[in-house]
């Protein structure tokens, strides 16, 4: 049912675990469909994904898809990372059974969720920075 590549990544994922110093974390999926994926990214000041790790609750396809997704975005700019689609994940895995394609879709969504989180953090950081510059009103 699963390709060799899926089984290889499922058995020995290269990017599993939590990332120390991650500044972008996104979670997608739910227990009803059976998959929850959490993506951790470290994005540097130049907007390049330096490192990526994942934690996944789910089937072989879900685990393999997130592991591949991490590989795909490492070294990419945010802009390029956002261009990664579920098809890229499937291509890297060789193939996925039709009823498991949604795992690759979730992997794509987990990248977007993490980047969204990164922007939210940036926004908050700039707001905080702005607040600090605000002068106390003189009486």
């Amino acid at each position, binding site marked *: 049912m*699963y390709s060799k590549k899926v089984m290889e990544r499922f058995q020995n994922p290269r990017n*599993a675990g939590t990332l120390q110093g991650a500044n972008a974390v996104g*979670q997608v999926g739910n227990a009803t469909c059976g*998959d*929850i994926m959490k993506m951790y990214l470290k994005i540097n000041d130049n907007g390049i994904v330096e490192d990526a790790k994942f*934690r*996944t*609750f789910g089937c072989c396809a879900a685990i393999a898809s997130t592991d591949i997704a991490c590989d795909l975005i490492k070294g990419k700019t945010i802009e390029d990372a956002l261009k990664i689609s579920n098809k890229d994940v499937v291509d890297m895995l060789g193939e996925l059974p039709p009823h498991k394609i949604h795992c690759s879709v979730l992997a794509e969504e987990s990248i977007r969720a993490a980047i969204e989180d990164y922007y939210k953090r940036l926004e908050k950081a700039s707001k905080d920075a702005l607040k600090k510059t605000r002068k106390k009103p003189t009486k």
Partner: protein
Amino acid sequence: MERRIYLDNASTTFVSSEVLEEMMPCFNVIYGNAGSLHSYGREAMAVVDKARDRIKTAINASKANEIYFTSGGTESDDWAILGVAHANADKGKHIITSQIEHHAVLNACHQLEKEGFEITYLPVNKHGLVDLAELLHAIRKDTILISIMAVNNEVGTIQNVKAIAKIAHGYDILFHTDAVQAVGVMSIDVQDMDIDLLSMSSHKLHGPKGVGALYVRNGVKIDPILFGGINQERGKRAGTENVPAIAGFGKAVEIAVKNHIINNKKFKTIREYFLEKLEEKVDHYQVNGHPHQKANSILNVSFYGIEGESVLMLLDLAGICVSTSSACTSKSLLPSHVLQAMGVADDVAQGAVRFSFGTNTSKSDVDYVIDELVKVIAKLRAISPIQAGRV
């Protein structure tokens, strides 16, 4: 892969040597069409009759002609539901079943809904048991059939079949039970239990695949669902009798019923040993099913924080064959409908694994399975975003 351990006996079993021996001559010696009038045909019919008689005895039917051979459990269930509904539609169009039935029953009911029948799907309690008060509450004037399985295939819970049959007959309603997982697990006496229709399958009890039977008490109105021949199975079930499979099925049922007490003792010992080891070596899990009213051959466990299919696949790599909920739904993405009906939370239901023992399962097999299970669980929990301890 050196060692292989098969703990998926609720999905299917190997054909035993006695059964195989019974079948072999039917392929090339007694190969006549059981419907033929000549000697080859009569010999084949004699084999079919012998099997019918064995099954009649095994479930204590009053007459052998109450046993109809089918292509298996699914056809038996579909036929019982659709056949009774169509033949009795003049009396009413309401049927009661449960939420935890096999899809063979559920999908036949869904088909009837399209035809204008109304179906009540009874809920179950947390142990998977149908509440008799709920059943009484659901009965209507136009209820024509109650269909409740004897033993659940996913969690092994045994229903109060005799009491349900009694309630049904108190209201002049027919009672069908899917006993596919029950034969050889519990003693079945269709007369004592007052059962009108009972579905059986061969391959769950060391018989061949592709054959089963439906017991239909004489006097019960049932329409055929297969149209073709008019002579086979007294005009009720068209199709040339699968003589080798029927011969094997008859033998398998005879053996399973004869050995059911001793087999149950074996299953009970293995199940208790498995649970003991599990408690000793694994944290954060729950056993799904009924604490007492259960088939000892089935053990359904949810491991918190991880998903069943990945447990299955890693165990498979270690040579251990198990299943998540049931083999029939292993390609489905939704949590088991049985566990959902029992009120098990989605993430816990997704972590369910079914171990179903065989008569040849040994304690040393269990030791090996537990050791591998410990490794698999640790590996998957290490990469899961759900913390098992917090479930």
